[in-house]
C-alpha cells in the first residue's frame, strides 16, 4: 500500500452490472417476468464501448486465459485494486448502467430500483468502505423523488446521480422536487459524463466518431452548469452541492468568465442571481479530477489550477476502471502537498455531508 494515497476519498468508481439476471433478482414479479417476456437483454449505452481503450485499463480487463472477469464486475477485485492497494478510505460508486436510455418512465424506475438494490447487496454490503450514488429515474421527477425516499435511509448512499445529457437541462424547475429531496437528506447531486441519447450529442447533430461523442461530454457540462446557475437552483436550495464527474475540469474557468461577463449585462432576466456566477460556483460546485484535460506539464497544470481561484473545488477520483491514467498517476503533475491533501481528503469530506464523522482520522 502506498502512503501517498492513504485516507483518500475516491469520488468516482464504476461497478459493472454483469448481466440482466443480476438485476432481475432485485425486481418484483411483474418486472422480472417482463424482462423475459419482452426479451430485454440489457440497457448498455454506446457511451463506453466495452473494447474501446478508454473503457477499461488493460490490466483491469477480463482475461479468459486466466479465468479472470473484468475488474469492475466484482466488488472484491475492485476493492483490491483501489482501496486495498492505495489505502483509500472510500470509493464512491457511480453505476452507469444505462437506465437513462429507457423511454418508459415506469420501466426506468423499476430498473433504477434494481440497480440501487444490486449496488447495495453486491457492493456496499461486501466492503464497508464503499459508498454509492442513488441512480435516478429522471424521466419522471416524482418517481425520482420516490427513489430517493426509498434509499435515503441507507447512509452509505451519499449522492444522487444524473447524466450530463438528458431530456432537459437539470437546473430547470421541473427537477426541483428531486433536488429538494436531495438537499433534505444531505445528498450531493452528481452529474456524470454520459447521455440518454434523447438528443444528439452535439448542438449540430450526431457526430461520426465515438471520439467526438466523448469530447462533446464536456460541452454538456457547460450547459448543466449554466442551467443550475441561471435557474437559481442554489438560491432556492442553498445547502446543495453539485459535483461534476468526469467532465475534464479545465473547461470550467473559461466558461465561467464568459457566464460572469454576460451576467453583468443581462442579469435583468435572472435577477435572483444577485452576485457573479463565479461566486455561486465556488460555494456550490465541485469537480472530480479524472480526467483533467491538460498536458503533462507542471507549469501548465499550475496555471490551469490558478484559473479555479479556489483550492476547494477539486475532488479526487480514480474513475476506475476507465483508462484515464497509467500506473498510479492518479493526479495531474505539479500539485503541491497542501493542495493534494485537500483534493484527496478535505474537499470530498466537505462536499459529502454523509461521509462526515465516519471518516474522522
Amino acid at each position, binding site marked *: 500500500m502506498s502512503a501517498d494515497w492513504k485516507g483518500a476519498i475516491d469520488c468516482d468508481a464504476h461497478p459493472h452490472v454483469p448481466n440482466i439476471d443480476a438485476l432481475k433478482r432485485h425486481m418484483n414479479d411483474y418486472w422480472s417476468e417482463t424482462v423475459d417476456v419482452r426479451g430485454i437483454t440489457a440497457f448498455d449505452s454506446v457511451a463506453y464501448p466495452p473494447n474501446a481503450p478508454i473503457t477499461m485499463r488493460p490490466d483491469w480487463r477480463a482475461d479468459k486465459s486466466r479465468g479472470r472477469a473484468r475488474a469492475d464486475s466484482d466488488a472484491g477485485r475492485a476493492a483490491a485494486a483501489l482501496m486495498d492497494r492505495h489505502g483509500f478510505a472510500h470509493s464512491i460508486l457511480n453505476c452507469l448502467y444505462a437506465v437513462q436510455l429507457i423511454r418508459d418512465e415506469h420501466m426506468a424506475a423499476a430498473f433504477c430500483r434494481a440497480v440501487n438494490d444490486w449496488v447495495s447487496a453486491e457492493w456496499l454490503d461486501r466492503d464497508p468502505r464503499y459508498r454509492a450514488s442513488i441512480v435516478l429515474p429522471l424521466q419522471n421527477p416524482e418517481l425520482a423523488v420516490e427513489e430517493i425516499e426509498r434509499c435515503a435511509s441507507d447512509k452509505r448512499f451519499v449522492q444522487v446521480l444524473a447524466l450530463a445529457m438528458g431530456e432537459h437541462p437539470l437546473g430547470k*424547475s421541473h427537477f426541483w422536487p428531486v433536488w429538494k429531496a436531495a438537499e433534505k437528506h444531505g445528498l450531493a447531486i452528481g452529474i456524470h459524463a454520459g447521455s440518454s441519447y434523447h438528443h444528439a450529442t452535439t448542438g449540430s447533430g450526431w457526430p461520426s466518431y465515438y471520439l467526438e461523442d466523448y469530447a462533446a461530454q464536456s460541452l454538456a457540462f457547460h450547459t448543466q452548469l449554466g442551467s443550475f446557475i441561471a*435557474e437559481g437552483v442554489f438560491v*432556492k436550495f442553498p445547502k446543495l452541492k453539485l459535483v461534476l464527474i468526469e467532465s475534464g475540469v479545465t473547461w470550467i474557468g473559461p466558461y465561467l468568465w464568459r457566464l460572469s461577463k454576460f*451576467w453583468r449585462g443581462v*442579469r435583468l432576466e435572472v*435577477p435572483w442571481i*444577485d452576485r457573479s456566477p463565479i461566486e455561486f460556483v465556488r460555494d456550490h460546485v465541485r469537480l472530480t479530477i479524472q480526467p483533467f484535460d491538460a498536458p503533462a506539464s507542471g507549469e501548465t497544470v499550475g496555471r490551469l489550477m490558478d484559473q479555479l481561484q479556489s483550492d476547494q473545488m477539486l475532488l479526487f477520483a480514480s474513475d476506475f476502471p476507465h483508462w484515464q491514467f497509467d500506473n498510479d498517476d492518479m493526479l495531474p503533475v505539479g500539485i503541491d502537498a497542501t493542495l493534494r491533501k485537500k483534493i484527496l481528503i478535505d474537499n470530498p469530506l466537505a462536499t459529502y455531508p454523509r461521509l462526515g464523522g465516519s471518516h474522522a482520522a
Partner: protein
Amino acid sequence: MTRHVVARAADLPPGTRKRVSVENRDIVVLNIKGELFALSDKCPHKGASLCGGLLTGLVRSTTPGEYQYDRAGEILRCPWHQWEFDVRTGRSYCDPRRLRLMQFPVAIEAGANVVEGPYKAETFNVTVEDDYIVLDVP
C-alpha cells in the same frame, strides 16, 4: 472647485439628458422627473458614452420567479455592454465597490446669481432672466 454653467435650465426639461465637457471631463447631466443628476459620462468598463444609455428601473429578486421592480428610470444602462449604474450613487450593480461613476454636485441657479458669481460659462451668454444648470467640478 469651480462652478460651471453648463446649460439653460429650460434646455434640459424632465426626461432629457445632456453630455457636457468640463475641465477635460465628459459628464452626463440627467433630468429625471425634475431631479438633476450629474455623473461621469465615461463607462468605467470600456469607456462608452453613458449619455446614450437607457434608463430603467431597479430589478431585484430573492427567489427564482420573483421580480421586484422599483425606482423606475433611475438605473442608467451602458449603451454597449448594458452594465447598470445607479444614478443616485453612481455605483454599478455588478461590482458596486470597485466600479462606480464619479458624481458631481449639480443645481439650478437663477441667472441673477450666475451673472455675478464666480462661474464659468464658456459656450453661451448668461442672462439674468433665465435659470441655469450649474455643475461643481473639482
